[in-house]
């Protein structure tokens, strides 16, 4: 008898499984009110801006005092107008937009803004943003709708730092922010409210009908988190998503979808540590800089979705210095001349040597990042042609960090917002060896001064001049061999309207991706 019951259960299961294979869900025609389904591999660790979610704005759930438009220009968001900077550059005053409420109905006040920034500065809070705001001494709410920021020193791009999402003070006061439930189910002022977040699976957002920027054009957003590039592409092809970020080679047109290649300030390059016998030699670094075939990398590794990189300021930025751009193809002959001139002579085994020192070093890459692995392989092949031997090592980040001062590394960074961001720490000598800002101990008084000038001056022309000097100095010293700027590649379902690509930063995921303005998207 039990056997028969089991068989019956099995038959029932088979029926259910069989019945489900009819593809009715795939053929359903979506209506405008349907939620938009997005897919990304970049799942946030937390949804709390204080801990690092949506720092650059466009976080769907939160608003900063300011946000960016389609050209990445600052526009007021929770601030009524762009905050005013005092003439000495050390006091910044923001007036709040009236009548803004959080998702839970409470009104936004200046105290919430002050609380948000104070929490970032609080040493008990494990916020990784603190070092970005180290110019900030205090934040005060002088009245219910006015916030005053006091800076240690004048910081030209400070307004760009005000995109950080504002959290309600009442929801977090007196709690251990590091472990608050808020981090999983936050309350913001943005176009979407959090319905649920299932880590590793999806984030479900519902439209905030009382959004101060106008009611969203769709009923909600579902963000699917699919960590693996291949699995995400498989599911995108099965038609599960309305828009998905895919690896460049996997973002190919398939039925019903269009590929979007979005320009970015997201660069990849090889960091070469100073103070080492091989990578510390300027001739080696300059030779590598001309020996790499950036054109072949863009075509072969990125499937065309990118452009050659020659410095940390993207070509589409007003601060870009055109003279630093070089040859996109490999110039092995020039590399050879540079090496010959410096005394690196060809040896029997095809690898050059200077005295007893072989032109050989180790290049690390993060093992989980297949793009960096492929760029590393391409660099190794190009360097070999120039007579430089590179040994590869694929490691986890915790294994890479202690070795960064000694071994080269494929790194990636970049932001389109201000040339001071990232570069100040990545190439400033005062950050040499500290954490992973300037792991290679790059030390150039010229670059230091240029970076400082760019930071201290508010005048556009002076800043341009400073960053031009900085970029030229980098091109001479080659602390990094810049390889490529990526284009972030997405597939978008035909019939989605409102997609407005804008130049993207290295860090993007739920926030700050192609869907930065998803609240204006509709689906036909």
């Amino acid at each position, binding site marked *: 008898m039990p056997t028969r019951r089991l068989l019956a259960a099995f038959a029932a299961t088979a029926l259910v499984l069989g019945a489900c294979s009819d593809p009715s869900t795939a053929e359903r025609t979506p209506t405008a009110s349907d939620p938009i389904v997005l897919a990304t591999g970049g799942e946030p660790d937390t949804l709390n801006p204080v801990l690092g979610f949506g720092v650059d704005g466009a976080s769907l759930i939160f608003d900063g005092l300011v946000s960016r438009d389609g050209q990445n220009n600052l526009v007021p968001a929770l601030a009524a107008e762009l905050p005013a900077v005092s003439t000495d550059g050390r006091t910044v005053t923001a007036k709040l937009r009236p009548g803004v409420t959080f998702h839970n109905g409470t009104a936004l006040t200046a105290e919430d803004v002050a609380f948000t920034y104070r929490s970032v500065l609080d040493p008990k809070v494990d916020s990784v943003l603190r070092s970005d705001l180290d110019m900030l001494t205090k934040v005060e709410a002088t009245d219910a709708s006015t916030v005053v920021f006091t800076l240690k020193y004048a910081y030209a791009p400070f307004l760009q730092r005000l995109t950080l999402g504002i959290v309600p003070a009442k929801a977090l006061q007196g709690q251990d922010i590091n472990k608050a439930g808020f981090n999983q189910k936050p309350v913001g002022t943005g176009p979407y409210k959090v319905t649920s977040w299932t880590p590793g699976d999806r984030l479900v957002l519902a439209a905030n009908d009382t959004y101060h920027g106008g009611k969203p054009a769709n009923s909600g957003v579902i963000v699917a988190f699919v960590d693996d*590039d291949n699995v995400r*592409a498989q599911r995108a092809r099965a038609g599960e998503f309305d828009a998905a970020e895919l690896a460049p080679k996997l973002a190919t047109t398939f039925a019903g979808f269009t590929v979007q290649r979005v320009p970015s300030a997201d660069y990849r390059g090889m960091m070469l540590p100073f103070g080492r016998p091989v990578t510390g030699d300027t001739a080696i670094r300059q030779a590598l800089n001309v020996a790499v075939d950036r054109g072949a990398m863009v075509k*072969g590794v990125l499937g065309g979705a990118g452009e050659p990189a020659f410095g940390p300021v993207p070509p589409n930025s007003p601060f870009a210095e055109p003279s630093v751009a070089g040859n996109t193809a490999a110039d092995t002959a020039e590399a050879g001349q540079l090496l010959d001139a410096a005394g690196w002579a060809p040896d029997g085994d095809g690898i050059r040597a200077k005295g007893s020192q072989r032109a050989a070093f180790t290049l690390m890459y993060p093992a989980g990042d*297949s793009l960096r692995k*492929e760029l590393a392989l*391409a660099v*190794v092949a190009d360097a070999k042609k120039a007579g430089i031997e590179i040994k590869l090592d*694929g*490691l*986890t980040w915790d294994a890479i960090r202690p070795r960064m001062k000694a071994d080269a590394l494929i790194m990636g960074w970049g932001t389109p917002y201000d040339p001071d961001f990232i570069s100040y720490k990545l190439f400033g000598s005062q950050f040499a060896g500290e954490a992973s800002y300037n792991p290679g101990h790059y030390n150039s008084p010229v670059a230091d001064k240029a970076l400082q000038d760019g930071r201290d001056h508010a005048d556009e022309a002076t800043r341009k001049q400073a960053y031009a000097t900085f970029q030229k100095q980098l091109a001479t010293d080659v602390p990094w061999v810049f390889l490529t700027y990526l284009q972030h590649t997405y597939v978008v379902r035909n019939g989605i309207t409102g997609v407005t690509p804008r130049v993207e930063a290295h860090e993007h995921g739920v926030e700050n991706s192609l869907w930065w303005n998803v609240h204006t998207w509709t689906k036909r």
Partner: protein
Amino acid sequence: MDKRDVTPAAVIGLAVAACLLVPVIWPLDQSAVALDNISQAPSLTDPGGTDDLGRDVLHRSLYGLRVSLLVGVVAALVATVLGGLIGGVAGLLGGWTDRILMRVIDTIAALPHLLLGIFIVAMLRPSLGAVVLSVALTHWLSTARIVRGELLSLRTRPFIDAAITGGASRARILTRHLLPHVLPKIALATTLMVPHAVWHETALSFLGLGLPPHLASLGNMINDGQRSLLTGAWWASIVPGLVIVTVTLAIAALAARWRDRLDPRVRAELEL
């Protein structure tokens, strides 16, 4: 040699020959790429096709087989030594030691191997040594059981009694009488472990927890090939997969027939 042994033996012979000879006659530059020759379908000149960095899939598969077999054999040997020692202690001492050891082994058998392997590799950082250790530490149980069982049954056999009454030393009994009987069984158990160790290694590599991903290993290649599968270049994952299947199947088949000969009561009846 039975004619049914010919095919698997030939496959294993070829695999071993490939592992030993390919590095000599057809050395692979592990970091070579050919970005102007990516994702080419298999052809007469390139029987395995190329992957999406222009690397020869068949060539890398043979190198991957080399790594996998090396990990498999070394891990199996380490596991055999470990299992042999523990099984030997249990079988020779018998009594309470035996009961406790066997109970402990039964319990350890319930540990999920792959999860433990993942844990070990994650904490020691992915590397060849960590993979070997994680495979060896989770695969010694069957050898321990076999050794212990053999020793216990031998202890009751008349020729051992005769040797003891004849005044032979313990060492002599062990080396002259016990080892010759146990060794073939140990060798068989080790051989049967090799395919398991190979799967374990490829699984860890596939999950990104094995060898560094730029090196040619079968698991790494199937992982890389997953992307090529989506761009239509099926050969990049099919070829390394077929290499694993063919070689492990041949080892398993040969070992199964070997077992039949050692112990004709149990017939595995695997025919290829």
